[in-house]
Each structure stands twice: as C-alpha cells, then as structure tokens.
C-alpha cells in the first residue's frame, strides 16, 4: 500500500539540490541576487561609514567659517562641493551632518518599530476588547497632524536632540502599532495559527514561531519608509529651534539655512536635500528588496 502511495505522489524532481533549512540564510541568498537592493545597501553603508569616519576622512573643519569664502560654487579649488552661507566647507558639513541626520532619522523609527510592533502584535493577537481599547487610545494621536504633534511634544519637553528623538518616536509609535495590529489580525485568523494552538503551545511561543516571521515584513517596510519622514520632521524641528542647534551640521538644518542662497548658488543649496533624498530613497528601495526576499512564495 505505501509503495503504491509513494509512486503516485512522486512528481518529476524540479530541483534536487539540497536546500538550506534556515529561513534567514535563504533570505540573504535572495537579497544577494537582487542588484538594486545590493546597490542601495552599499550606498547606505558608505554613508554610515563616511559619517562615522569623518574626522579621519575629511581634512576640513565643518565649523570653521570664512567671510571671504562664502557661498563658493561647486567645483571651487579647495572646496570641491563649495561652501555654505558662512563659508564652511560643504564636504565636511555634509559628512559630519550625516551623523546627526542618520541618527535622528533612524533612532526614532527603530525605537518606535520595537515598541509599535510589540504593542500592535499584542493587540492583534489578543483581539476583542483589549484590541479595541489599545487601538482607540492610539487613535487619539491621529487627531493631530504629525508635524504639529512633533512641535507640541518637542516644545513641551524642551530643546535638544534627545527630546526631538523622543517626540518623533512618540509620533511613529501609533502608526507602526496600527500596521502591526492589522498584519497580526490578518495572520491570526489563518488556519496555521489554529493548528499551532492545537499543538498546545503557549501564546508566546505561537507569536514567536508563527506570527513574528509573517508580520515583521510589512511593518519593517513601513518603518523604513518613515526614516525619510523622520529626517524631514527633525529638520523642521531644528528650523524652529527645537531640535539640533544651528552651528551643528545636520542635513535638514543645512537645507533650511541654505534656502536663502537658493538664487545665488542653487547647486550648493540643493546638496543637503540631495543627501536626504538619496538616503531615504535607498532605505525605501532596500526595504522593498528585503520584503520581497522575505516572501517565500514568489
């Protein structure tokens, strides 16, 4: 009997190469085949390295002003990317500015990702009244435009980088919680979760083994999209004097201070914006690539 069964189920072997058991090794393999994702990851890695190693890579001082070398155009001798409105070297400012910009762009999203996922997955898995209580509470945050809320929280907490990171984190938590909750609610009703419950496993085990891998993808993609939002909101806070203080190089702040020079030297004025654009673009594309690599049934 079992011989007959074995014969009838045999399908022509499509690939007989041994398969890796580990899911994440498979994800990495698929990412490495995706050229766009690899390029984006490389660019981001380079930006991070330049920001971190700026004191060793960049000879110029980002704080040194010079009244006679103000607003030099791109390609000037000694200042390859020109100078800003106070004569400071743009290469140095962009490199050093990456530190603060990347930090303020990534940190709030990262913290909110962790908290939002935890709360959202809990709400989605618990369902019922607990879910409703949590989600309606978070809806309060949606009543305010996020920029206004950031300004309000930042203003209440006082000026400073830590406080603006905190304000931005608070803004992103409801959004990420909502994504996590809807993804979890969707997965929870699938029969494999019921099958896992039938095994007698605890809720924590079910979440860890069966829910997390299936909901983190969409949350992650949404979160990476927030990195650029975070950078732009942070620059808005800096502009209002609530975030990074003026002498400090930061892309958003530089964009704001250079806006007066946009008719005199548009190329230089656009540089910090270009950096923000490249960074957020790379984050988004990389997130897309990682998401599709995490998708097993392509």
């Amino acid at each position, binding site marked *: 009997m079992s011989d007959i069964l074995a014969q009838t189920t045999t*399908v022509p072997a499509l690939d007989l190469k041994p398969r890796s058991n580990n*899911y994440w090794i498979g994800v990495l393999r698929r990412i490495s085949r995706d050229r766009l994702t690899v390029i984006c990851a490389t660019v981001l890695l380079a930006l991070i390295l330049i920001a971190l190693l700026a004191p060793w890579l960049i000879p110029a001082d980002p704080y040194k002003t010079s009244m006679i070398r103000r607003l030099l155009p791109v390609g000037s001798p000694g200042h390859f990317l020109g100078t800003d409105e106070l004569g400071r070297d743009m290469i140095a400012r962009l490199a050093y500015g990456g530190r603060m910009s990347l930090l303020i762009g990534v940190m709030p999203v990262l913290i909110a990702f962790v908290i939002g996922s935890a709360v959202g997955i809990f709400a989605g898995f618990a369902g019922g009244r607990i879910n409703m209580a949590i989600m309606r509470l978070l809806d309060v945050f949606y009543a305010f435009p996020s920029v206004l809320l950031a300004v309000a929280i930042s203003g209440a907490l006082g000026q400073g980088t830590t406080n603006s990171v905190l304000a931005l984190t608070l803004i992103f938590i409801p959004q990420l919680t909502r994504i996590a909750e809807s993804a979890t609610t969707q997965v929870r009703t699938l029969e494999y979760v019921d099958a896992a419950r039938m*095994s007698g496993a605890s809720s924590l085990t079910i979440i860890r083994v069966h829910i997390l891998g299936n909901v983190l993808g969409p949350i992650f993609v949404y979160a990476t999209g927030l990195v650029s939002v975070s950078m732009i909101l942070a620059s808005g806070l800096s502009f209002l004097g609530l975030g990074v203080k003026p002498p400090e190089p930061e892309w958003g702040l530089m964009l704001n201070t250079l806006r007066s020079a946009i008719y005199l030297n548009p190329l230089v004025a656009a540089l910090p914006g270009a950096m923000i654009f490249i960074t957020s673009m790379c984050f988004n594309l990389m997130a897309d690539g990682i998401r599709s690599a995490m998708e097993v049934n392509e």
Partner: protein
Amino acid sequence: MTTDTRPLSVAEDRGGPAQPILLVKGLRKHFPLGSGFFNRNRGAVHAVDGIDITVPKRTTLGIVGESGCGKSTTARLLARLIEPDSGEVIFDGEGVGIPNGMPLKELRRNLQLVFQDSFASLNPRMTIERAIAFGPTVHGVGMRDAIERSRSLLDRVGLDPTRFGGRYPHELSGGQRQRVNIARALAFNPRLIILDESVSALDKSVQAQVLNLLMDLKEELNLTYLFISHDLNVVQYISDAVMVMYLGQVVEVGPVEEVYRHPRHPYTKALLSAVPSLDPHRRTERTPLSGDPPNPINPPPGCRFRDRCPQAHAVCAGIAPERITVGPGHEVACLLADAASGHPDATGRNDR
C-alpha cells in the same frame, strides 16, 4: 512500514474499549451579533444548538450537512478553538473544560484537527519538516528527535523526506500539503482526528489516495475519525456511522448503510436524492430541495426544516422534534417518525 513513535508515547486507553472516545451532550454555541459598545442584544447566530455526539473507539463518524449548518463550528468547539456556551464534552471518560477535568494541552495531544485549506493551515515561512516537528517540541521533545520523527512521518504519509522535508508549503501540491497536515496531526500520536472537509478541496484521484491513506493509518494506529464533509459519497465510503446536521442541530444519526438505505428524515432523503447518480434509472426527476436554509439568527420555534420540507404540517411549527430511536443506533429528529406527535403522516417507530 512502521512509524517511529519514540519521542511521544501513545496516550493510554483509559476507559476501555466500551467507553466512547468522545461523548458530547447538549453542545451549544451562539455567536452574538454586533460587537460594538452600543449595539448589543441584536440576537445571535445559532451556529451549534444543542447537539449530542457519540463516537465509539476506532470508528469513523461522518458529519454531513449544507454549508453553514454548523459542521465546522462543531469541529472547532470540540477542539476548544472556540469555547462552547454550554454542553458537556467527555473524552474517553474524562470531562473537558471542567475543573479537575482533562487539561487542554492533554486534550489537544489526544485530539487533532486537519483543516480544509491545506495551504492556509501551513505556515508559509516554515519548511514542512519543521512544521510537523513543531508540535512535539511543544511537548518537550528535543528539536533533533522531533525532526527525525517528522521525517519518518513524512515517509509514512508517502512523501520522501529527503526530497520534501526542506520544502516550503507553496512548493507542494494540494494533495501533498494535505498529507503534510495529516503527518502534523499524527506527530502528537493522537487518538481522535477531526477531519474538517480535509479532502474536499482535492481533485478526485488525489482525494481517493488521501482517503486510502487515512483508512490505512486508522487501522495501523488505532485511530478514531470524525469526518466532516458535504460529499455524501466520500462519507459513505469512509464512515461507520453518519450524522446529518441542519442549521446547528442533528436531524438524523445512524449506521451509514442504514441511513443511506433507509433515511427517515425528509432532509436526509432530500440530501441523498441530490447525489448525482450514474445509473439512468435512478436519476433525479425533480429538484429535491429548493431555497436556502432559514436565517440562523434567532431561528423560529418548531422544526427548523419545516419551510423547505415537502411533508411539513401545521404541527411542525409548534413542536421542536426530539431525537427518537427508530432502529439500532438509528435516531431521527422528525415528527414523522413519532406516531404520537400529531402529524397526520406520522408512522410508527419501526414502520418503514
């Protein structure tokens, strides 16, 4: 071919062969309508409305009925995936869901469920050998042993573990996935498996293979099946007894040959005459049933089938029929079978 049962031992037979493995009395589940704060008490869907089930050991009970009659809800209630409103469930002599009764984890080790949707019931991000191994690890079996057991089970259900073990669900066909689901249920060494439309989504030839596999496994592992299906031919093939449900209630139950040959309830008769026959002399002359079942939200008193019943009478609106015995193990809930009911066409109990 023997199955390696080392890591999880088979639960012992507590009640002896005469004790039914599953005894259900008055199982009831009403889903309230409207979950918001302001719209309470709009009524409830009477999904399962007081049903009694008896499943003797090592038999197969088929449950048939139209969609929405409460078959799947019954399966989920028995597995405690949803909590019943009331009713008594006794698994091999031990009460379930009562203080000092059988713990839930223990019940779920003895009772497993195989779902209809073979794809949705497997985690898409988990290789199938891991999906099968997950259950035993929950019960304290080490990962290495669990994988080993999972591979031997894959072999047992007819999938080569070296070729299929590391695959993901989407890389398998529907029949192969359903074999995986069966293997996952077997990994617990259960004694009762509820098959909720488990072969309904498969095409006929694959369905036959899976049914044969199920029959073999039943013999080999002393299993008991609760086989839920809307396919009357399949139920006849695999079951010892059959239970017909209509709108959350049992209308007829009995040994499969008896019920198929001499159906007593008009609904069962209609169902059976709706089965397409290849014999031209037995072809259906007219539509056996028309219309849909009435709304299960707050159903009216009396017999729930009376709106569609060809033999309905005024008394049917007043009296909800009780289950009465009409033959050995054959029970029917219809006033026609009760001579004392007042129905003009009612016949005696053993009168056919």
